[in-house]
């Protein structure tokens, strides 16, 4: 029974990791940079959801799309004002100033954490549950109504995103830019718009993740650090830029942490992912689903 509990819990947590990590993967796929402020997009979502539902009285179900929109706005603004100088005027990745993105996204992360700390205050805030069932038994499994609904919404969002990327016109443009920015540009695709769209989507997904988890993992200024660190591990583990890789790696990590915490030691829970990451980097450096090369 314990093993079933651990498996289900690991998959649920893995799904939440996935919702965070796919946004980061998309950004890496398109821009080839790591966004160090990704965790803070999560935090923006958690706070927007909590404040909209509790202070503005919108109710949790209306607060959810508001958080999604707030994350999209922050993502769009970050791309428009901070990231665009990175590639404006360049069509070749070789000319891009990668170190700029590290500095600027790290600074954005610190700015957002401290801004929220000063404006909202240091006290953590628990968001209201979408479904007010503090705990329930589903067969042998105990979980809250919020966890169940959040899991369903997260799964639906990931599936929706996969369909969007696979079949929509914008999704095809994103994939084309991810494969070859110069080639996509020559084919008439607006690569700048694709980059902007990806940052907006990434911000929205991270914020949605924060909103869904706000009733479980209370919002606080530094709440984004934990999911962001997991996401960085997942992105490399799954293969940088690979969406299916991110989802599989997220679920694997969730399950591995869940079992490892009980059968090895809880103290080393965060180490398991790093050990797997090191092994993958040694034996399969391109990650589980990554490509060996992208140059054309």
């Amino acid at each position, binding site marked *: *029974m*314990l093993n079933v*509990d*651990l498996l289900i*819990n690991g998959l649920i*947590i893995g799904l939440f990791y996935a919702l965070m990590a796919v946004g980061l993967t998309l950004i890496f796929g398109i821009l080839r940079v790591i966004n160090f402020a990704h965790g803070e997009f999560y935090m923006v979502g958690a706070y927007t959801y909590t404040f909209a539902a509790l202070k503005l009285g919108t109710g949790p179900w209306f607060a959810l799309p508001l958080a999604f929109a707030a994350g999209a706005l922050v993502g769009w603004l970050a791309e428009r004002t901070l990231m665009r100088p990175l590639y404006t005027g360049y069509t070749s990745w070789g000319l891009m100033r990668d170190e700029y993105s590290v500095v600027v996204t790290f600074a954005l992360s610190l700015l957002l*954490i*401290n801004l929220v*700390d000063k404006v909202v*205050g*240091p*006290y*953590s*805030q*628990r968001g209201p549950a979408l479904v007010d069932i*503090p*705990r329930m038994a589903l067969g042998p499994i*105990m*979980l*809250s109504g919020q*966890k169940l609904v959040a899991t369903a919404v997260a799964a639906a969002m990931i599936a929706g995103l996969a369909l969007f990327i696979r079949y929509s016109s914008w999704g095809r443009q994103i994939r084309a830019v991810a494969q070859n920015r110069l080639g996509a540009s020559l084919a008439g695709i607006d690569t700048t718009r694709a980059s902007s769209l990806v940052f907006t989507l990434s911000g929205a997904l991270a914020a949605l993740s924060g909103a869904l*988890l706000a009733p*479980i*993992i*209370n919002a*606080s*200024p*530094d*709440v984004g*650090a*934990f*999911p962001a660190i997991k996401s960085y591990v997942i992105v490399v583990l799954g293969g940088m830029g690979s969406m299916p890789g991110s989802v599989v790696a997220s679920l694997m990590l969730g399950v591995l*942490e*869940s*079992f490892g*915490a*009980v059968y090895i030691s*809880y*103290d080393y*829970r*965060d180490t398991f992912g790093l050990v797997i990451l090191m092994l993958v980097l040694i034996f399969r450096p391109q990650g589980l689903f990554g490509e060996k090369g992208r140059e054309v």
Partner: protein
Amino acid sequence: MTNDLSWLLKFIVAAVVASAALAANAADPIKIGISITQSPPGSVVQGTQVKDGVEIVKDMVNKSGGVLGRPIELVYEDNQGIPEKGRAATEKLITRDKVVAVTGGHQSSVCLAEIEVAKRYNIPYVNTNCWADAVRTKGYPQVFNAPIYSSRVAESIAETIVKLGLKRVVAFCENTDYGIGQAKAIAEALKQKAPGIDYKYETLDRAGKDFTPAILPLRANPPDMVLMVMLPPPAYIVMNQLYEQGVAPTARTWLYDSSGLADYPDFWQNVKEAGKYMLNFALYHPQMKLPKLAQEVGQAYRQRTKNEPNRLIFQAADSLLFIVDAIKQAKTTDPAALIKTMANMKFEGTRGQFRIAKEPGARYQQMVDIPSVTYQITEVNQATGKTLLIEGPGMPLATAKLLKPAK
């Protein structure tokens, strides 16, 4: 005649210059350094409360004319709850800001780093909320301790566990000097008081967000008590996940908090049903008899924040009052003289009258004896004043009063 006039003129000029200098000196504020967490990853919640407590006392002292005719100025440094930053903050306060004493420390790991600097510069360091015994056992004469200490807390908790007649206790402690130190101290106290009790502790990452894997094994084999040795915000998440998994509090398992969680203003915002029936070890309860000074500080805190005061407010207030008292008694701001005075002081603060213990070990330069209580929360959103006081100064543990969930 001309010589006499010239002498008189010189004397007047000298007197004017001297008195002007004296006046300037008299008006110069006495600087006291406050090193607290004002930004993550440390406990900003605690830092904010410590700041509130010292600000209230600063205003009270300055309104009543200051100390030695000079106002107090508090110089803040943000240590972010990181030991290295605390060390740098203390160094800056002492060398650049020229403070006469440092206080505010509220996280044991940071205190342990900061006291090394205070020792090197021979500056008094008044620990506001660091419970770890190690802060005292180092035996630094510069360090004075306003809060309770881990082994004393452990003794109280062990006594409660024994009186409740429990057989198996599992503690969740955070991976900090405070958490691990406290969990080990409880193990030691239980070994002495009731070696038959099966006690084990699980260390949880303070930065963690999902603690379910640590909780799930308890579902199959529930203990008699889950003991929390954690601070917010992770403590709230653990409580909610314990409740969600039906582990504690239940008819079978007590939930016992050893770190004053219910004192924090954001407690009920972050836990709902998970807080009902929880037992609390605490250093303050509104039903305790409080000195007039505490009532004034409490009132000022209510006006300032619209929140109820808690032990951190009083500990912070006492830390600064202790320094102010030492300056008054020593009649100087010379740090070496202050250390000497503090070591022999009898001190009246918001929590009563204290003396400074001299014996080496966990009580070294500790304000003794700090009163403690045990109370139980019996309703969701219950104000601390309305909770069920079951043990306190001069009041033995009333186990018959305790409530448990029906199932």
